[in-house]
């Protein structure tokens, strides 16, 4: 397309002049008309395309601008007006859109109170606002971007995902993704009902004390496998029956000590009691 426009530009200076001089019956009139027509179409197309690009840039700039305003109003107290970080909050330069999508999209940010770790709470912004702030933070410096849908579709290999989950994630998040305790009041949250994009975001960005699992450690396809496994675990009930929250010996031990031993004590009393 570009090449065609260039050609027209070079001919445009000569052709209309010759057409005016010798009239419509000139042998070159058809050619001239063709040239003019093509020029008009090409020019209009080029103009339209440029306008479209300018609109996208304008929309993006508007989004970043809107995100900047939201950031200044809601986040800048701790992260600084330019996201450079303060004593109260880390720098967001290079944090990327995905980190914003995870932290704000799960309601962890804005932080309601300082504590061992940020808690998941009702999301404070609409997805459009989250996207705007993500665009603003991504505009500060390059960082992890929101993944394309095919990496969070959850249509991968659940068996491979299960093995990767057991090796990389299960020690903190529990083998069934039920979560677990960490040191000094921190905890690894349960993963049931978490949006796949947030699971992906947590792996890539390593929020708070979670280690980073970059695409060089677990490829996007492997991350999709892990998401597939987590969705499988949620959608398929435990084979062993009532899983008691999948918390392992804690809930199972409590259950058997209270109800199992309780039943044994009850039977013993009934055995030795005299009949009425």
């Amino acid at each position, binding site marked *: 397309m570009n090449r065609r426009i260039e050609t027209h530009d070079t001919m445009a200076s000569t052709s209309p002049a010759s057409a005016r001089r010798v009239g419509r019956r000139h042998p070159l009139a058809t050619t001239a008309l063709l040239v003019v027509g093509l020029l008009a179409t090409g020019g209009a197309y080029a103009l339209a395309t440029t306008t479209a690009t300018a609109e996208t840039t304008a929309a993006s700039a508007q989004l970043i601008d809107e995100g900047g305003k939201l950031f200044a109003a809601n986040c800048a107290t701790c992260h600084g007006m330019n996201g450079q970080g303060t004593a109260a909050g880390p720098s967001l330069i290079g944090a990327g859109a995905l980190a914003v999508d995870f932290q704000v999209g799960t309601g962890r940010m804005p932080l309601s109170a300082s504590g061992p770790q940020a808690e998941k709470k009702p999301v404070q912004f609409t997805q459009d606002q989250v996207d705007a702030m993500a665009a603003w933070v991504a505009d500060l410096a390059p960082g992890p971007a929101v993944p394309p849908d095919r990496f969070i579709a959850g249509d991968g290999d659940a068996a491979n995902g299960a093995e990767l989950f057991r090796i990389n994630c299960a*020690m903190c998040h529990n083998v069934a993704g039920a979560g677990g305790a960490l040191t000094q009041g921190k905890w690894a949250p349960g993963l049931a009902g978490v949006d796949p994009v947030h699971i992906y975001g947590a792996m890539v960005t390593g929020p708070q004390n979670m280690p980073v699992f970059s695409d060089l450690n677990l490829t996007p396809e492997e991350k999709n496998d892990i998401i597939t496994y987590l969705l499988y675990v949620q959608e398929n*009930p435990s084979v062993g029956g009532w899983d008691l929250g999948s918390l392992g010996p804690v809930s199972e031990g409590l259950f058997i000590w209270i109800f199992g031993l309780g039943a044994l004590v009850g039977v013993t009393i009934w055995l030795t009691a*005299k009949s009425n």
Partner: protein
Amino acid sequence: MAEEHGATSGETAGKAVAQQQDHTAPAPAIAVVRTDRIPNPGFPPERLRVTDLDPKKEKQAERTISALFFLSIIGSVLAVVAYIVFPIDELDPSTIRLNNMFLGIGITLGLLGVGIGAVHWSKALMHGHEQVEQRHPTRGSDESRERSVEIFREANAESGFTRRTLVRNSLIGAVVATPIPAIALFRDLAPAEDPVALLKHTMWDTGVRLARDPSGTPIKASEVTIGSAFHVIPEGLAELESHRLEEKAKAAVLLMRLPVDELNEREDRAGWSYDGIVAYSKICTHVGCPVALYEQQTHNLLCPCHQSQFDVANHCAVIFGPAARPLPQLPITVDEEGYLVAKSDFTEPVGPSFWERAL
């Protein structure tokens, strides 16, 4: 007491009991009771059960008990029916749920029906009177005691057990020898090689590349971004034909990258890390659980079994819990292609203490 009773005839036993009873009476010239033994109160008056008094209730109990037994039969049949109706499909694990649940309910009804029915029968309908069974002396009569000694003597004389010493001694030798094969067999359950040497060395060696668990692909230093945690096995472990799990249990390593300014390195371990990348054994020094709960901001490593905590920024020093030693560090560097490699094996045995572990 029984001994005393046994030694005397019935008459003297009666006397002894009479003497005992005398002890409770005040001694001459002493105005207090010598012992404060509580007298036997005997049995409380028998309380009759409703089934003894009311024939209707008796009939009801009878029906209940037989109903329990019938329920048991139904349960047992149900278990067989459930086993056929809800087969386990190997490709669909969810079928195990229904199979196990109905099989379990059936067998439970079958067993509990019999048990509860039998107990209820004995409690509600069977003869309810209390009875006393006196204890009798256990000593045999003198005649039977003499006769049994005589039998031993006769057997000895007839068999020649004490006379034919060669036969007797060879028999004793044979009996003593029979457990020897068992000792040889069970001894072979222990590792054929010296277990101490096995415990002191792992697959890590100079130039062995660090590889991802489970794929076994080697890791480049440039791939380990700050805050990352990699679960690492030695390259070649994934392809091992035998003893793969044993080797993995010793060689498993956690690779982490900390900001260089947050990592405190000891003088003698200065060259053991690479640009903030450190590798530590994943086997807890307490009882050998895999320690992998890494917190990338506090640089704490938590063992899930007994809550031992290690500070990765300070050579995995123990900061909490029952572990006695820091986690062993694997000295690492990079090869000319940029892959992370081990400088040597661990410089101390990994995992929990053992008897021959020199401290």
